[in-house]
């Protein structure tokens, strides 16, 4: 993908977009109250990955760095479920270790995006006027610079550390977060309960806290899933280009890139973590989409 890798699919996830939920996935289950099976699968997969990330250090067999020199580049099988890499290291163990790095970046990204973008979006939507215009200009500015290249530059100056990568990717999710939140605030500002609260003299801060933020939170939470996938993919792209987290704690992207050279003889080294990454992105995308459509159905008519 292009530098647009880092750019959130704003047209897809922004509040301005009429695109509906994916018709093919579990639409028929919407009517009943039970949680659809597709959601359970998505949640289940994410839980499994998280559990593996947390439990791996406790399990002796899953050391991502220990090389089984007797079996270099071994195909998936009994001893190593996903095979070994060129140095005889277990691919499953490395995939799980990669998940840890990818998730760490994603968590930082979402934190930065949510806090900064959420605040800016609230301010822009609530105050309007010059505040809105300045914030709008800043977001436009951020969106017209090549995000991936900017992060690469920063990494080349500052080194590929988790804080640098996570916070910078987070910075580039700020415009999208801000727009989502701003749209919700604008849609709420004219609604009866807010107008009523204003008329009876409720303080603006109280209205913000009690009436606006809870509504905004739903939209922002839905978007956080999208931002998670953006962060994972962006960090993967960075690693792939050699600008990501470095060994001994490589991310999914780094591991996938490592396996490139042996793609002909041992494709599993790349493809196994690649599959894990895709499934995770899919699950998070799906949950975000479900949350968004649920929010739009129940929430204000936008």
């Amino acid at each position, binding site marked *: *993908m*292009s*530098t*647009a*890798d880092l*750019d959130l*699919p704003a*047209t*897809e996830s922004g509040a301005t*977009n*009429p*695109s*509906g939920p*994916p*018709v*093919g*996935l579990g*639409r028929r289950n919407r009517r009943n109250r039970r949680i659809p099976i597709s959601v359970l699968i998505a949640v289940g997969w994410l839980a499994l990955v998280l559990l593996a990330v947390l439990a791996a250090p406790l399990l002796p067999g899953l050391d991502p760095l220990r090389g089984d020199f007797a079996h270099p580049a071994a195909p998936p099988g009994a001893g190593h479920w996903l095979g070994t890499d060129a140095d005889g290291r277990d691919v499953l163990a490395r995939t799980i270790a990669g998940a840890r790095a990818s998730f760490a970046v994603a968590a930082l990204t979402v934190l930065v995006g949510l806090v900064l973008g959420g605040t800016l979006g609230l301010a822009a939507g609530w105050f309007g006027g010059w505040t809105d215009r300045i914030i709008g*200009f800043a977001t*436009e*500015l951020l*969106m*017209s*610079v*090549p995000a*991936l*290249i*900017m992060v*690469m*530059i920063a990494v*080349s*100056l500052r080194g590929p550390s988790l804080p640098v990568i996570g916070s910078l990717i987070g910075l580039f999710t700020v415009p999208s977060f801000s727009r989502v939140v701003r749209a919700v605030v604008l849609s709420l500002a004219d609604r009866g309960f807010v107008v009523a609260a204003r008329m009876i003299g409720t303080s603006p801060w109280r209205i913000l806290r009690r009436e606006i933020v809870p509504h905004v939170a739903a939209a922002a939470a839905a978007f956080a899933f999208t931002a998670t*996938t953006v962060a994972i*993919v962006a960090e*993967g*792209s960075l690693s*792939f*280009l*050699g*600008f990501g987290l470095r060994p001994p704690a490589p991310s999914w*992207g780094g591991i*996938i*890139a490592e396996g*490139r050279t042996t*793609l*002909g003889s041992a*494709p599993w080294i*790349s*493809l196994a973590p*690649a599959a894990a*990454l*895709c*499934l995770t*992105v*899919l699950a998070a*995308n*799906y949950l975000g*989409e479900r949350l968004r459509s649920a929010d739009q159905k129940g929430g204000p008519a936008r």
Partner: protein
Amino acid sequence: MRLRLPGAGRAGRAVGVLLAVVLAAAALPHVMPGSAALAALGPTATPDQIAAYDRRIGAGQNVLSGALHWLGGAAHGDFGTSLSTGVPVATELGERIPVTLELFLAAQLVALAIAVPLALASAWRPGGLLDRIATAGAFLWLAVPGFVLGLVLIWVAAVQLRILPATGWVRFGQDPAQNLKDLVLPALTLGLTEAAVYLRTLRAQLIGTLDQTYIAAARARGMATRRLLVRRALRPSALPLVTLIGIGLGMSLGGSVLVETLFAVPGVGNLAAVAIAGRDFPVVQAVVVLSAVGVVGATVLVDLFYRRLDPRIAHEHR
């Protein structure tokens, strides 16, 4: 009273964005004078070497004068010289922009050839079998990042089937056939990824269009479905897609860093990756500004194209 000129707000903001990006780009070496030199020359560099390096990249001056200096040069087509190759940045860019544009155009062809017919067919019967497959497929496809897709394509086409080269690039002028062969995998990687986004965008818009009375009216006059979709529904539904393509065009000038690196395509993105890794600041500055110019320019182009697509927009601005 605020003075309101038609389009002044947009144009003003575009110019503002560009200026800010130029400033930021010019500020790059100033952010950390010396650190760039240290990074480039290594820890063994002497203070003299560092000072000399900083002078070459213009660090040490204040940011504003640095930016003005850079702008002055850029106005004459002088973007400085590459620190690593000694080639003028303008020359380098001149050679690489056509490559990137060729890749972009090929990728758009791939994406549109897939997305447009699928969107038309699935929007005609939303919820139908084809629509459910296409929508679910596009959603699954969105989860495959470009670098994974590229890798899989290399594995299938170059490693398993051995029908296409994995990497490399021959200019069209040298050997058109080989150039097109080299083009296939990178164009597929870029195009297939975008196809999913295009499909979702266009489908959503088409569904809205097809519910309009004027579509029912055209059907009542006996217009065949295929003609109706292509001649009457596509155009009023195309605005968001045009925006996406425009943004893509703008971004592509900054280079498709990932795909160009993965397939060793000598375009702007490849240049950017190499320049950043080598702390070749003049090149990096030029690429960043070029990219912003691309985005802003594409926005203007999209605006102009909107008016052609939808006469009502031209009407409003008159």
